[in-house]
């Protein structure tokens, strides 16, 4: 077969335009500032949540003020499972931006860090990281991420005015919690004892996920056994409690009337305006709530999800998100990206984040402080962190096994569609797929 000159010319043209496009995209940053020696622009990918975007932009601004030759461009992506897909796809196609923000723990393990991410183990700032956090961004003994944002508590946010009006005490056991709910319901005024917002399904999981401190207090080796397929939600009495609590709240009629369709902002509104008393949620939403309802900084408090034993009650913690550099970042951009990580993981970086909005909890960098005007709900987390043994990491940071359907299952259990025991068994089936996909031993 002979190539006709026309055809090969066309092919040549196609190839040329491809390389041309690649070149111009790569060199845009430097050609813009021909005068400034070595001006670099790096792109930082974060989620499109209001607070995250504000935080990212503040970080970019403050970083640029210190390193005038480096500009950080903020790009956003959706959160949740949709975001997981974007991260995985971009990594596997080599199309990732220079620095990106992603979860730590089990989701971090799922993006094959050894293959896709640059190890930052030798950076000096790694020594200043909180050990709990470091564990969640480590794979095969190498640290891969810098913390962005603070720790988050999975806890119950409560309305202080409602508590004061009815003379209630912060509960430390589930029985006390339910007794409070009964009094709130009897107190009338249309106040919903427990706010649930199944219109946004992830918010339904807190009774289960936020209960993990109580699970590990009762069964200290649960996480290990769970990873090895030796412990199950349905058969461990302590772990099953979370599902039972979800059901109990529905069975007793303590949920707000529109629980099935309400969304997170509705829930926050109810809490901030005293129309709802308790909202089991992540403390990460506090900043958003205060941005809309400034009074909530004083009128909303926080307590850990109550378990059976008051003496062992404690807070379940989510570690901050991680900042990662993909292996595809090279040259000047790589140096700039490393500097950016070092900035974020420094007291200056923390201060910059605090400037962008109320923190979600204490920072994971030594030497960082929260500042004086932190909201009441965040302040309420500190005693749990200060007291030894009164806080532990959520299961998703201790075990790579996390099923994708928990939020649908807890919606079913909390809506009375499915019983707690059945829901737990179904979740056990769900995590099996995840464990198999990860190729864990014993599944």
């Amino acid at each position, binding site marked *: 077969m002979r190539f006709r000159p026309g055809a090969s010319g066309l092919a040549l043209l196609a190839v040329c335009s491809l390389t041309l496009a690649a070149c111009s995209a790569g060199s845009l940053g430097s050609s813009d500032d021909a005068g400034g020696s070595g001006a670099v622009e790096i792109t930082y990918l974060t989620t499109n949540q209001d607070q995250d975007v504000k935080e990212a932009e503040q970080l970019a601004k403050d970083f640029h003020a210190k390193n005038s030759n480096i500009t950080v461009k903020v790009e956003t992506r959706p959160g949740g499972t949709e975001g997981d897909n974007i991260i995985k796809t971009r990594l596997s196609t080599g199309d990732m931006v220079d620095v990106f923000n992603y979860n730590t723990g089990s989701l971090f393990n799922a993006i094959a860090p050894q293959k896709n991410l640059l190890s930052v183990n030798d950076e000096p700032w790694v020594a200043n990281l909180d050990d709990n956090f470091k564990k969640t961004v480590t794979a095969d003994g190498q640290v891969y991420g810098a913390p962005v944002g603070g720790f988050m508590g999975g806890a119950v946010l409560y309305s202080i005015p409602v508590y004061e009006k009815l003379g209630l005490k912060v509960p430390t056991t589930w029985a006390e919690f339910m007794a409070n709910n009964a009094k709130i319901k009897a107190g009338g005024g249309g106040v919903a004892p427990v706010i649930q917002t199944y219109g946004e399904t992830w918010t339904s999981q807190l009774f289960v996920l936020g209960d993990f401190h109580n699970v590990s207090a009762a069964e200290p080796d649960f996480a290990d056994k769970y990873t090895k397929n030796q412990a199950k939600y349905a058969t461990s009495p302590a772990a099953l409690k979370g599902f039972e609590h979800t059901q109990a709240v529905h069975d007793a009629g303590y949920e707000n009337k*529109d629980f099935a369709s309400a969304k997170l902002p509705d829930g926050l509104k109810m809490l901030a305006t005293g129309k709802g008393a308790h909202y089991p949620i992540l403390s990460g939403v506090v900043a958003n709530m205060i941005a809309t309802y400034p009074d909530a900084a004083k009128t909303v408090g926080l307590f850990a999800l109550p378990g059976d034993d008051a003496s062992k009650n404690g807070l379940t913690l989510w570690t901050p998100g991680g900042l990662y550099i993909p292996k595809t970042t090279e040259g000047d951009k790589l140096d700039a990206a490393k500097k950016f990580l070092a900035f974020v993981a420094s007291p200056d970086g923390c201060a910059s984040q605090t400037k962008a909005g109320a923190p979600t909890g204490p920072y994971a960098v030594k030497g960082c402080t929260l500042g004086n005007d932190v909201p009441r709900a965040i302040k309420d987390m500190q005693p749990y962190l200060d007291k030894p043994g009164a806080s532990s990491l959520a299961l998703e940071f201790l075990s790579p096994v996390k*099923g994708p*359907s928990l939020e649908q299952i807890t919606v079913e259990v909390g809506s009375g569609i*499915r019983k707690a025991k059945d829901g737990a068994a*179904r979740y056990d089936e769900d995590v099996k797929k995840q464990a198999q*996909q990860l190729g864990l031993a014993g599944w």
Partner: protein
Amino acid sequence: MTVTSARPQDRVDSTPAAPAGGGKVYTPYSFWFYLPTAVLYSVLFLVPTFASFYYSLTRWSLFESKFIGFDNFVTFFQEPALVKGFTNTLIYAVVTSGSKVVLGLLLAVLLTSRIVGRGYLRSVVFFPVLVSTVGVGLLFQVLMNPERGIINGALGVLGIQGPGWLTDPKWALMSIAAVDVWKGVGLATLIYIAGIVSIPREYMEAARVDGAGSWESFRRIVLPLCKPATVTVIILSLIGGLRSFELIWAMTRGGPGFTSDVISSVIYKQYQAGFYGLSTAGNVILFVVVTAIILPLSWFLNRKEVDM
């Protein structure tokens, strides 16, 4: 002379309907003419199809794959959501397809009659077909909100307490099906209008002379002569129903819980969770199911048409 007279006969023998046994088949195009499309076809369709058959037998991530035999299919059929999704898919397809046939035919009869503003009314019925499915889904999600939605608000004025259209497990699937019918009935109507308009006027006139009323002429003339249109509507809307996804995802994401999940949304969720092998297996199953339903149905409906 012999040569020239032999050629036309050759041509007759080798019509596409009756290809010659071992002899050379005559085609108007050379082999090279087919090559580009053949290459495109195999790269874009054949290779992915067979690759997906293979990958459904593996546990793969974007980085590697591991052969595990039929495990994915076993897991998929053990997935409790699948059984629910399966029945939901069938219910959804039958309900939407049936409603579109009935409503489409009735609307077509109305819109082929002599009414004021016929052209305008025809385009109004067809409008929802043109609107983005996701947009329609999100809009109805707001309209159907049990507390603040306009639908329950209107019902409340009449003194009726409307259900949680999308939040009550008993209603969710049917509410989505209703929206699907609203959105898709325009296309069915259009096909029926074409069918009805093509019926020769003489039949109707002859029937009227014979003393047939409107019901009789509808039942004896319009209905049977619209059979090709009916077949098209059924097949199109059934396939559409079996693979429906966007509307369901936009309105409930399969919820509450798993109560409005269909096969496509189950498959999508497995992809989202990163269970790529499992979802590939799900797609193979969907392919088999759609083929198993549509092939015999289309054969059955088309045979009836020939008989008549």
